[in-house]
């Protein structure tokens, strides 16, 4: 892959990969770093892409692995007092992109971030990115039946978080669940 081809490859897929990572990790800088790492790895291992799946699915799989690595590292870091305090502060920052979209979306974003990673992933791919069941199954390495089941369960869990409220008390959000 030459420089021009890589530029096009990055231009075509980086936004969607960034969005996917951003919704999973909930931090702009981390999402940008992980997106960069995804494309770096994609470039270095491009010869291993066999063309069986769509290139976007392949890149998304790399991104997914990186997100899992990130969470694994984060779990280890939790045991280090100073870094874990810093990390908690960082988590409280809400991205401007979400705030600009209005209260409803902020609250939905908060509810989404409370879901477990498995549910978050399937909702992002199926409902936000609009991927097909087949594509989602390939990306996540699940069966199509598991994708269907987990989508339903994830939506139920999301609704439960919204209804139970937790720390969600916005008027705007209540209007959508009535």
């Amino acid at each position, binding site marked *: 892959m030459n*420089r021009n081809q*890589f*530029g096009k490859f*990055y231009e075509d897929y*980086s*936004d969607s990969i*960034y*969005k996917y990572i*951003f*919704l999973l990790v909930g931090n*702009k800088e981390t999402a*940008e770093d992980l*997106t*960069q790492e995804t*494309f*770096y790895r994609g*470039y*270095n291992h491009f010869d291993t892409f066999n063309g069986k799946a769509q290139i976007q699915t392949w890149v998304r799989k790399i991104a997914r692995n990186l997100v899992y690595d990130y969470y694994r590292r984060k779990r280890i870091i939790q045991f280090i007092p100073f870094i874990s305090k810093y990390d908690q502060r960082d988590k409280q920052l809400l*991205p401007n*992109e*979400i705030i600009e*979209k209005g209260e*409803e*979306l902020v609250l*939905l*974003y908060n509810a*989404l971030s409370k879901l477990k990673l498995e549910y978050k992933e399937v*909702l992002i791919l199926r*409902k*936000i*990115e*609009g991927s097909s069941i087949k594509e989602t199954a390939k990306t996540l390495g699940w069966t199509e039946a598991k994708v269907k089941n987990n989508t339903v369960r994830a*939506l139920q869990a*999301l*609704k439960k978080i919204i209804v139970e409220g937790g720390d969600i008390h916005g008027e705007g959000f209540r209007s*959508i*669940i*009535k």
Partner: protein
Amino acid sequence: MEKDLDRLLNELSYIKRDSKQKQQSFQKLSERIHDDKTLGKKLKSWKPAFALILVGLVCGIYLLTMQSQPTMQHTVRGEKMNEIFDHDQSYIQTMTLSNSHSLRSFPTGDPS
């Protein structure tokens, strides 16, 4: 509710990425790839030198650890040592002090 939720989830897909940050990220990525390539080329050109150093190191260690033939001086010194041991043999014996546990007990057979 279902439709509203679907609509809102779909709206999350319109989150825009900071174009400036995207540009910077691409720039960094390109630099990273370019640096890797130049580093790879440099390493390739240094490969024979590394191999030569390694071979030199192995040969050096081999030469240092190789046993030398005993010289006349070594032989004389060895023989003298044997003579001393033979002479003092009766005084060299195992003394198990730990069994006595007492400062009053001393080994017998003073060589003087």
